[in-house]
């Protein structure tokens, strides 16, 4: 009975922590499986480790990696700008803008990326000549062979950027929609223009919602650059497959390129966390640090 209890209870709570035996059991099983997989790969007769070691720092591989990084960053930058424009257009009161954006997004999400890459790569076959000028007049600013104006690298960047823009547009749109409508009203009541409101008030807040899925897209883009092999852009996977087609060490070079892809995607996590902190300012409790997670599955 609480009322007859004379204990003081002024001391700290000292309790035996809850035990989690299942975690140890499943952790053990997972470790065994992982170790045996690593052992299987390591001991496989078909993989020559000295070849992996030989090619992992091969200049052609490292050069290919540079191209991969360059294409990824460039495409994501172009895609982010286009995606923001598309998202704003899709939310516009202007029906023409809405339809244009919706059409663009539907088209580029609705056809396979590989097909789009091949299309841009082989544009020269469909349109051998490109002319920029005023139709039905003699005014021509730029003309030339398509294959000169759009080399494989440019074709690859166009294909990946446009496709990515279509996907990212929906992410940006979701981010914009997540911003409280009261924010827009407050900005309007201060006399801010629509553009100012978007730039200064809405987008910075939308970033908080946009960055985590955009991190995903970044990683996806990094891996999708390997598809540019089909139009012979000299990125990492192309470099690896060029080498392996000469020395027939396919598996070893897959391990080499796989290792570098994994290394690059792992490193990408750091800038993402920095950005999340940057745009989490004011939403967290102290100094921009993420607020403690309110929701966890299971017991801690």
């Amino acid at each position: 009975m609480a009322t007859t209890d004379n204990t003081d209870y002024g001391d700290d709570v000292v309790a035996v922590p809850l035990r989690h035996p299942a975690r140890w059991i499943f952790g053990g099983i997972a470790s065994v499986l992982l170790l045996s997989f690593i052992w299987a790969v390591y001991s496989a007769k078909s993989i020559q480790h000295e070849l992996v070691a030989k090619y992992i720092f091969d200049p052609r591989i490292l050069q290919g990696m540079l191209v991969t990084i360059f294409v990824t960053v460039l495409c994501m930058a172009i895609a982010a700008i286009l995606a923001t424009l598309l998202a704003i257009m899709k939310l516009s009161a202007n029906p023409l803008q809405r339809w244009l954006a919706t059409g663009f997004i539907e088209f580029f999400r609705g056809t396979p990326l590989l097909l789009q890459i091949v299309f841009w790569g082989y544009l020269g076959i469909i349109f051998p000549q490109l002319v920029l000028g005023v139709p039905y007049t003699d005014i021509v600013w730029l003309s030339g062979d398509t294959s000169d104006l759009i080399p494989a690298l440019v074709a690859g960047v166009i294909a990946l950027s446009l496709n990515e823009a279509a996907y990212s547009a929906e992410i940006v749109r979701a981010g914009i929609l997540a911003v409280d409508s009261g924010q827009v009203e407050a900005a309007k009541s201060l006399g801010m223009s629509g553009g100012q409101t978007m730039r200064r008030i809405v987008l910075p807040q939308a970033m908080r919602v946009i960055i985590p899925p955009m991190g995903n897209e970044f990683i996806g883009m990094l891996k999708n650059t390997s598809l540019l092999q089909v139009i012979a852009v000299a990125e990492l996977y192309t470099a690896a497959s060029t080498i392996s087609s000469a020395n027939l060490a396919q598996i070893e070079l897959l391990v080499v390129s796989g290792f570098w892809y994994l290394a690059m995607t792992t490193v990408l996590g750091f800038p993402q966390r920095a950005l999340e902190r940057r745009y989490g300012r004011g939403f967290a409790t102290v100094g921009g640090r993420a607020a403690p997670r309110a929701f966890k599955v299971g017991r801690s």
Partner: protein
Amino acid sequence: MAKLMVDARSVRKSYGSNEVLEGITLSVEQGEVLCIIGPSGSGKSTFLRCLNHLESINGGRIYVNDELMGYRQTGKVLHEMKPKEIARQRQAIGMVFQRFNLFPHMTALQNVIEAPIGVAGVSPEDAKKLGFELLAQVGLADKAEHYPAQLSGGQQQRVAIARALAMKPKLMLFDEPTSALDPELVGDVLDVMKGLAKAGMTMIVVTHEMGFAREVADKVVFIDKGQIVEMGTPKQVLDKPQEARTKAFLNKVL
């Protein structure tokens, strides 16, 4: 007679077939404080939002500081204004919201100086000076570098008032500024508003704070179902209401 700051004539507003304002006519002189009271859903907040054209109206005219809000009139024809022109008109009208609507990604000071720099073109140094002055005026000089999430509701609302004042408005609109606050924080916000009224600011306040209305208002208007039921001095409306609807409402809230 003093200059009319707000002149609203037969203002009507409807959402589809739902008529929210059924012809509101009222005026506010320069330096006057008008309190709007009424049950929830009566249209009082909507009317306030029509005044700075956050909502467009379906009928009537609204003049603020002698300017027709949201439209240009040539002869009998009304032309919708460009967003830019409406934005310019809004600069003269400060607004304070029930849920503060501070920009969460900016510090208190940044909230206050955003519009002076971005809209009014004040230099960052001057804006900062003004920002500190205004934060001091609302009693928050020491909170300039705090983010809204680090402030109490009452402090946030006072920052919001400072933010609205930073554009040097001729008219201040308050949309239930204390309704979202814990009772012990209401007083600080009302004190700031009383100070503003004393300094001669023209104010329209939608409120449930009858004590504030009695003390500060020059005029009280009771709105119900989109119509003005009763209008007059606080004494007339709050102490000796003539209409049955006003009496019933006051019985419930007092």
